[in-house]
Every structure is written in structure tokens, then in C-alpha cells.
């Protein structure tokens, strides 16, 4: 609850004071008061409102004590009441305003801020993570993360990055930047037990965005994509090594998440305003629909990848499409497609892993080994490295006969 209330309270106080640091300090103060008061009196019925009111009152008290604040107070006199009178306490309880959070996330994810600053600000201000928690998520020291946050907040204030939902004309592009920050937060938590909580945080942020912007199908698409990918987490690793989709125990998948994700995908299809995130969610929905790897509707997956590539023509999409083609047309066609994109993805471990698997299916053991080794050198997570080491080990025992199965062998790396 702390994180959620923190995010709501900071967002509202940024609107009230127009200053992020002031808002954060006030909210922290209010939580100190709360830890004392709530212990005795119990948690109030509206904790966010309580925190916002207390934080606002304390911030105003603080401002009054400072010289700048006295000046401000004179200007605001009529609104804020007299310096020492009852004033602020009489305002009644404030309510968190959900639009405040929306405004703040657009500020945090403003394209004038570099990506790592966008991510850090979003986790800190909206996610309510402590500086130390954000630092650990990005494998940097607490002091380095504190500096990063200070720099980002300095730029917001100095350059006057606005605190508002962008105008209609700019909205699609600005929303893309917000959604990509949330998805980046999710992916940072993938395959790393230490950072697993980031995935939950990203899902929570996406839920908030869907609630705040119900007419934006890509926000719904992102939520569905993350839910469907999250549903398979229990089956994704065994003994700390990655388990491929084809080998996963599908009974371990989380049916509740799958149902929710698939319902969102169906709603997106009915809405018929497709975008990259909705298409990726649709692909995951097809995977989650199959009782076994063999029963997967691969032609539909290839179609969806074709559609995705038409709106997002990136080498990674082409890679995933090539892997799916391996299931519909066989490893030969997949290898041709992979070789075409190999130069663009030479530093991407999943491309080499996919080539390794495809070459193995074609019986080219030495080439497969070289590709797996290359992938292992480029792999970032321990789970990936363990998986690749297993593949190299298994190669030695492989039959030299090429794999003739056209639509059932190999692996599908995109559907993690």
C-alpha cells in the first residue's frame, strides 16, 4: 500500500506546489507522522487523502518558515490563511486525483529526458520505490542513483518540462514513450530473481494507465502483453536455467492472468485500432491458447508477425518472425530468414541462439556449436547462460541426421 499511496500523494502535491522535490519531501514527512499516528489510531479510511492533507499542511508550514515562503505566503495569503492561524487544517481531507498521476507520468517520460532518467523517475515518483530500491534495480550504487534523480529533477525544473497530459496531436507519440518506459521496467525484471518485483510494478503502472486512458488501445495492449508473459513465469525456469516454450510445463501457467490477458486482446481486436503492443499481446495470446507446443497455431503467429513487422519493421521483430517460420516452413526457410538479418543483430544473443537451434535442426552440429557459443558470450542473464551451456552439452550427443520434422522441432524463443 505504501508505494501506491506514495505515488498518488506525490503526483497531487506536484500539482499543488509545482515542485517535485518539495512534493517528495512533504510526502516523506507525512509518512513519518503517519507511522506514529496510525500505530495508535489505526489506518484511516482514506490513507492517500490523509497523507496528501498532512503533506500539504507540513509543506506550507515549512514554506512559511523560509524567507521565500514568507514572500509566497503574502501572495497566497487569502488562499492559505494567516501564518499562525488554524488555516490549513480546516481544508478538510484532500482526495488523490488520478489525473495528477497521468500528468506526472508524462512529465517523467518526457522525450527531453534520457531513457534511464525516465525510468528512474517513473519508478521513484509513481512507483514509490526508495532510491535504494531503484538503484538496486539498475545495478548502480544508491549515491549514483540519487545523483541521477537529482539531475533529472533539475532538468524538469530548469527547462520547465510541463506537468500535463499532452495535447491530442502529440498524444500518440508521447504515450508511446510512456508505454515503452513501463515495458522497459517490466523487461528489466525478467529472468532476474533479484529484480522480479519490477515486473509487478510495471503491471501495476500499466493497470493505472489503462484506467486513466481507457480509450488508448495500446495501453491495454501493453497490460495484456505483460499479463500473458507473466502468466508463464512459473514454467520459465527450472533449476535456474531457462526452459523454452516448447519444453514448458503448461499446467504451471497462471490461468487467471491468461484469461485476463486474452480478454483484453479480444477487446482490442473488436476495437480494431491495432498497434505494436496489441499485436505482440495477440501473439502471446495465441501461444497461451495452445495446450502444447505442437498444437500452437503457427500460421496465425506468422501472420501476426507479418502484421507487426508492417507497423514495427525492426530486426528483432524479423528475428521472431524467422523463428515462427521455422515452425511453419521448416528450419531451412528459418535459416535463410535468420541469415538475412544476422548482420543487424550480430551483438544480440537471442539471434545467435536462434541460429544455433535452427542449425542444430538441420544437422549442422559444428555451426550450431559456434552459434551457441557466440550467444553464451553475449548473454546477460545467468538463466540464459545456463540454458546455452545445456544446449552445447546436448549437441555432443545429437544424432548427426538432420531433423526432418517440419513443423514440430526446434524452439520458439520469442514466446518466452
Amino acid at each position, binding site marked *: 500500500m505504501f508505494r501506491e499511496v506514495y505515488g498518488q500523494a506525490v503526483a497531487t502535491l506536484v500539482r499543488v506546489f509545482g515542485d517535485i522535490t518539495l512534493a517528495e519531501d512533504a510526502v516523506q514527512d507525512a509518512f513519518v507522522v503517519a507511522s506514529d499516528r496510525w500505530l495508535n489510531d489505526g489506518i484511516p479510511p482514506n490513507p492517500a487523502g490523509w497523507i496528501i492533507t498532512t503533506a500539504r499542511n507540513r509543506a506550507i508550514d515549512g514554506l512559511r518558515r523560509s524567507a521565500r515562503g514568507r514572500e509566497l505566503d503574502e501572495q497566497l495569503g487569502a488562499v492559505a490563511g494567516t501564518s499562525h492561524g488554524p488555516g490549513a487544517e480546516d481544508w478538510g481531507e484532500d482526495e488523490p486525483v488520478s489525473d495528477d498521476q497521468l500528468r506526472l507520468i508524462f512529465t517523467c517520460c518526457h522525450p527531453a529526458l534520457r531513457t534511464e532518467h525516465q525510468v528512474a523517475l517513473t519508478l521513484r515518483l509513481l512507483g514509490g520505490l526508495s532510491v535504494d530500491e531503484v538503484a538496486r534495480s539498475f545495478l548502480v550504487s544508491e549515491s549514483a542513483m540519487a545523483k541521477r534523480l537529482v539531475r533529472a529533477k533539475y532538468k524538469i525544473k530548469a*527547462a*520547465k*518540462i510541463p506537468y500535463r497530459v499532452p495535447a491530442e496531436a502529440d498524444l500518440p507519440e508521447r504515450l508511446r514513450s510512456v508505454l515503452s518506459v513501463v515495458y522497459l521496467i517490466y523487461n528489466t525484471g525478467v529472468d532476474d530473481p533479484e529484480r522480479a518485483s519490477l515486473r509487478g510494478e510495471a503491471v501495476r503502472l500499466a493497470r493505472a494507465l489503462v484506467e486513466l486512458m481507457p480509450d488508448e488501445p495500446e495501453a491495454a495492449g501493453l497490460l495484456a502483453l505483460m499479463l500473458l508473459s507473466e502468466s508463464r513465469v512459473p514454467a520459465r525456469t527450472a533449476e535456474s536455467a531457462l526452459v523454452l516454450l516448447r519444453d514448458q510445463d503448461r499446467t504451471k501457467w497462471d490461468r487467471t492472468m491468461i484469461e485476463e490477458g486474452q480478454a483484453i486482446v479480444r477487446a482490442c481486436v473488436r476495437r480494431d485500432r491495432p498497434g505494436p503492443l496489441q499485436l505482440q499481446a495477440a501473439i502471446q495470446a495465441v501461444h497461451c491458447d495452445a495446450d502444447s507446443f505442437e498444437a500452437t497455431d503457427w500460421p496465425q503467429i506468422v501472420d501476426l508477425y507479418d502484421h507487426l513487422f508492417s507497423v514495427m519493421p525492426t530486426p528483432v521483430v524479423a528475428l521472431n518472425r524467422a523463428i515462427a517460420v521455422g515452425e511453419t516452413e521448416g528450419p531451412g526457410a528459418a535459416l535463410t530468414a535468420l541469415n538475412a538479418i544476422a548482420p543487424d543483430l550480430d551483438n544480440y544473443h537471442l539471434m545467435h541462439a536462434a541460429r544455433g537451434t535452427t542449425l542444430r535442426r538441420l544437422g549442422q552440429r559444428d555451426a550450431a556449436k559456434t552459434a551457441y557459443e557466440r550467444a553464451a558470450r553475449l548473454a546477460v542473464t545467468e538463466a540464459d547462460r545456463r540454458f546455452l551451456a545445456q544446449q552445447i552439452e546436448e549437441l555432443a550427443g545429437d544424432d548427426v541426421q538432420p531433423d526432418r520434422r517440419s513443423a514440430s522441432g526446434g524452439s520458439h524463443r520469442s514466446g518466452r
Partner: protein
Amino acid sequence: MSQYLLSTYAGDSKVRTPMTPEETQTFMERITALESEMKASGTFVFTGRLHDPDAATVVRSQDGDLVMTDGPFAESKEHIAGFYIINAGDLDAALAWAGKVVDAINHPIEVTPFFEMPGA
């Protein structure tokens, strides 16, 4: 209302290909149109185009004496070639104007906020 510096950088002047008279003509028309738009909307504060850093002189105080050195303060490949100072409500407004300058001059623009003087 805040003020922002929109500056453009130029590299080594030797690699620049000179514009044809026609190109110069359309370039000047684009600039004139942009500046009248800036002036009409109360955005325009000041503009300037600078000579190459070869023309610069640095003045500094050394043991109580003023000493001059030929050349720019910082030796770098790029230098500020020209700038606008504009009024804008926030960064989004400033960036929108920067975009118009980029379209007019076909060159990247750096947007830097001016320090706001208290009480100003």
C-alpha cells in the same frame, strides 16, 4: 514566461559546400518567414549569427593584469554558429519553436533554458 536559447553548432568551415544563389534565396525566405512568425507571436527576443572561432579572442585576468589570447576559449570541433533567444511558456513550447528552426535551417538545434532571476 521563460526564455530559452536555441543555438546551432557548426563544424569545420572547410568541409561546408557553399550554397547556390537560389539555395541562399530560399533559405533567406524561410528564415524571414520564421522570424516574422516569432515576432507576431511575441516569441522573438533576439537573434545573432557568429563568425568562426578564428575571429574570437579570450580575455582573462592573470596576476591582476588583463591578458588576451587569440582564438576560442574551448578548442573543439564544433562551435556556436548562431542562435535565437525566445520567450516560451514551457519546454514543450520551446521545443516546438526549435522544431521550426530545424526545418528552416536544416541543422540540429540545442535548446537551453535561461536562468530565471528571482523576482524577474
